[in-house]
């Protein structure tokens, strides 16, 4: 088992404790998301998972991403989810028991178990893909974590960074178009109105 887990540094008790706590939060939250009937409870379970992921980020010394994870996911995305759940008023009517497709649920469980086992087997086969190659900069370079991520984003991935700016603008415009309640026209006009505004902006990203 030791070669499976590639022990290189002696594990310390605090590190193990933090990892186990984060892992429990992640798994409990994840199971809560798919097991809760009420979507509000699912959203709150998702906060637990996202917080657990942030804990694991800190444990791996990715402090900047941990902070961003909390701010963006727990602070913005989950709030957006909760807002839409309450806006639509769908917080109780989920028929978990009715199953239109025969044996869809057992098949889904089987498929997921096979997939997870395959992923882990791939990891073992590849020796967990460890190996030293520093492509864009060391994680623990001369700067702090924020500085290293910043250097990487603004030098190597500058084009991708600019593309995300376009992506965010398009997403905002798209959301406004989708959610707009067109005044005089019926709601049928919502989807066709997406086409003329969506098409030219799409080309901006690809070009």
């Amino acid at each position, binding site marked *: 088992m030791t070669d499976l887990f590639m022990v290189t540094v002696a594990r310390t008790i605090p590190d193990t404790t933090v990892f186990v706590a984060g*892992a429990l939060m992640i798994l409990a939250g*994840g199971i809560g998301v*798919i097991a809760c009937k009420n979507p509000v409870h699912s959203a709150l379970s*998702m906060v637990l998972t996202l917080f657990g992921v942030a804990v694991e980020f800190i444990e791996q010394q990715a402090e900047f991403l941990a902070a961003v994870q909390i701010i*963006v996911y727990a602070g913005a995305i989950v709030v957006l989810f909760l807002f839409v759940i309450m806006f639509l008023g769908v917080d109780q009517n989920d028929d978990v028991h009715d199953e239109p497709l025969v044996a869809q649920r057992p098949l889904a*469980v089987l498929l997921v178990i096979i997939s997870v086992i395959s992923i882990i087997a791939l990891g073992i086969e590849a020796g967990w893909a460890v190996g030293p*190659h520093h492509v864009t900069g060391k*994680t623990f370079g001369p700067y702090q974590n924020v500085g290293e991520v910043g250097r990487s984003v603004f030098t190597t991935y500058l084009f991708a960074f600019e593309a995300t700016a376009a992506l965010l603008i398009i*997403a905002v415009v798209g959301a406004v178009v989708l959610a707009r309640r067109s005044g005089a026209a019926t709601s049928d006009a919502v989807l066709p109105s997406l086409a003329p505004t969506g098409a030219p902006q799409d080309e901006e990203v690809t070009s």
Partner: protein
Amino acid sequence: MSIPGSWYLILSALLFGIGALGLLIRRNVLIMFMCLELMLNAANLSFVTFSRMLGDIAGQSAVFFVLVVAAAEVVVGLGIVVAIFRRRSTAVADDISGMRD
């Protein structure tokens, strides 16, 4: 810091499996979206783990971009859910079968 990377990768695989399972067995569109977020987070955890194990900051940059894409995806996705709900008054995936019928 001293935890072997394989533990994180196994945890990430489990989280991905939970997300995929939820996506397959739940009918509520909003919960299916949440399961997508779980799967994205599993990928993020793998990225950060590889970043640490390979000593390469590129993995963390990738997570940064995944976060941006996830935020945009949620905004557009929830916009679509609201638009569908306005027309069909449902957020259950089985009821939205207009293109099949």
